[in-house]
């Protein structure tokens, strides 16, 4: 599903250059639930953003669903993001003036799904994250956990091939974090490929594989026994 080879990325800051990713190689198969771990500043977000085509790499190869991602026009990149990728951010990134339902329906707008169908589908996904009664509420009227569930519903609504989550529980207390992880595990159970960036051990162990980043390279990549989040909810 995802394959990257010798991926490099550095940030230029004035005359200095900060080499963040120093040759990353890895592969993700369909249906995997991968945790990307590492200390703060180790380049986890940078890697995920490149995988999500939110940012560009300096060099290296990237293939997503057998499509080589290289020198894409912004228009093409938008199409791939829309069709292949769903995002879940630590800061939720909901549009504050749109209701929960409208937020979930937004990727479908960019898929040119007609309005009525859009709303039906969005409602279906809101229902799946248990927020149907909150459909008409603005993000400001929702709790952190609820916001993240709306964001998850939004990521799911486009029916992407890969879900990318950057510290999805970073802004949540542990109980809410487990609820969100429970949701992510269930989505993964349905066969969706998911990458979760986290620096928390317990969250990482709720995935099926842990990739450890340190100083811009992968220092460890292991399959693990998944801890189900359900038991903590």
């Amino acid at each position: 599903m995802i394959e990257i080879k010798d991926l490099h990325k550095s940030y230029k800051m004035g005359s200095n250059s900060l080499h963040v990713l120093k040759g990353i190689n890895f592969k993700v198969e369909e249906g995997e639930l991968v945790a990307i771990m590492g200390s703060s500043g180790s380049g986890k977000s940078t890697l995920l953003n490149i995988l999500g085509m939110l940012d560009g790499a300096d060099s290296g190869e990237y293939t997503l669903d057998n499509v080589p991602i290289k020198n894409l026009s912004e228009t093409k990149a938008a199409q791939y993001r829309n069709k292949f990728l769903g995002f879940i951010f630590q800061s939720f990134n909901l549009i504050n003036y749109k209701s929960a339902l409208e937020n979930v329906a937004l990727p479908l707008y960019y898929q040119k799904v007609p309005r009525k169908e859009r709303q039906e589908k969005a409602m279906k996904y809101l229902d799946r994250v248990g927020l149907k009664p909150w459909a008409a509420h603005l993000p400001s009227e929702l709790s952190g956990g609820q916001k993240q569930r709306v964001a998850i519903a939004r990521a799911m609504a486009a029916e992407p091939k890969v879900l990318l989550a950057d510290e999805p529980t970073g802004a949540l207390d542990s109980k809410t974090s487990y609820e969100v992880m429970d949701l992510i595990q269930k989505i993964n159970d349905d066969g969706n490929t998911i990458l979760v960036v986290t620096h928390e051990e317990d969250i990482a162990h709720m995935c099926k594989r842990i990739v450890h980043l340190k100083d811009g390279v992968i220092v460890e990549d292991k399959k693990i026994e998944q801890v189900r989040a359900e038991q903590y909810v």
Partner: protein
Amino acid sequence: MFDLERWQEIFDTIRKNKLRTFLTGLSVASGIFILVILLGFGQGMRNGIEQEFKQDASTSVWVWPGVTSKEYKGLNPGRRIQLVNENFDRSSAMFKNTIERGSSRIFVRGVSVNYGKEALIYGVQGVASDFQFIENASMLEGRFINYQDEVSAGKVAVIGNKIKTDVFNKVDSPIGEFVEISGIPFKIIGVYKEMEDREEERIYIPITTAQKAFNGGNRINNMSFTLPPVENFDEAVAQAINFKDDMREYLQQIHTVAPDDTGAMEVWSAMEEAKRYYGLTNNIKLFFWFVGICTIIAGVVGVSNIMMIVVKERTREIGIRKALGAKPWSIIAMILHESIFVTAISGFTGLIFSMALLELVGPNIEVDYVLNPSVNFKVAFSTVLVLILAGTLAGFVPAWRAAKVQVIESLRDE
């Protein structure tokens, strides 16, 4: 433009961001409002100044004798030149092909003027019938002095409207009333109106009467003429200058005045003055163009700032939309579509309100040098278009930038 889904998305955005939309709209509308009012007053001031200059017949020429300042043909300087009837009659005959109308005039001095028991302090002037047209005075009541009055040296008087309101406020009409000038009763036959109050504080009587009744002999104080109107302004000026020079030359000869002693025989042409005034109005025009352009620039800067701030504020939203699969052009189109829509609606609202205000209030404004402020609809309309265009461009730059940069940069924006 006719993408229904996008219209829905835009109306959604507007509905959900009422305050932002309202503030944007308000500043655009008030900008246009102020602009139109300013343009209107610029026009009003031009009208007003033009009006101020429209007092006397525009082709009038005035002759004022003075005191010689140069020795000439054995005559000492310091000699007071006195015009007499003959000067007027001869010159009128000489230049009869050039002159349209003419009148000599005498200021009657050292007389008392009474209305009943009331003593009046208005100046009395003896004039001919043509003087009405030279002064550009319009009759409010009755008639002006006519040729018959001149021939018969009738004891009739024409008063200014100011005198009527100041003195004859107890009678229905001053017509038929009598004023006594040095004890001689003069019947009021007319009331005239002038542009300026000062010129309405005169009592005109026939020049013949003035000379006969008040020891005027054949003396006159000055002469005035109008020339026939000429379509072309430059020709009119040339005609006036020609006539002026001929007239001066003739009178200087008769009175033995040195040709370069202009103070002794002053000839003044309204046309020449008008030429200066046209130069002045051109400068005023230029000035108001300058003010107008500055105002438009201010408006452009204002609207552009608003647009830039609005788009800047939405950078993160742009990032989110892009992460969800919005193409760059759909982002730009959405933002511009919305901003054009809001600017256009509010711009034209401001336009309509300001034009309505000018329509309603404009004609009632009575301030010196401001007359009927109004604005050319085409100019105002184009101004609104310019502002919309400027707002669009100003919104376009940050929208384009936000649409082009890596999504993560827009998302990072706080």
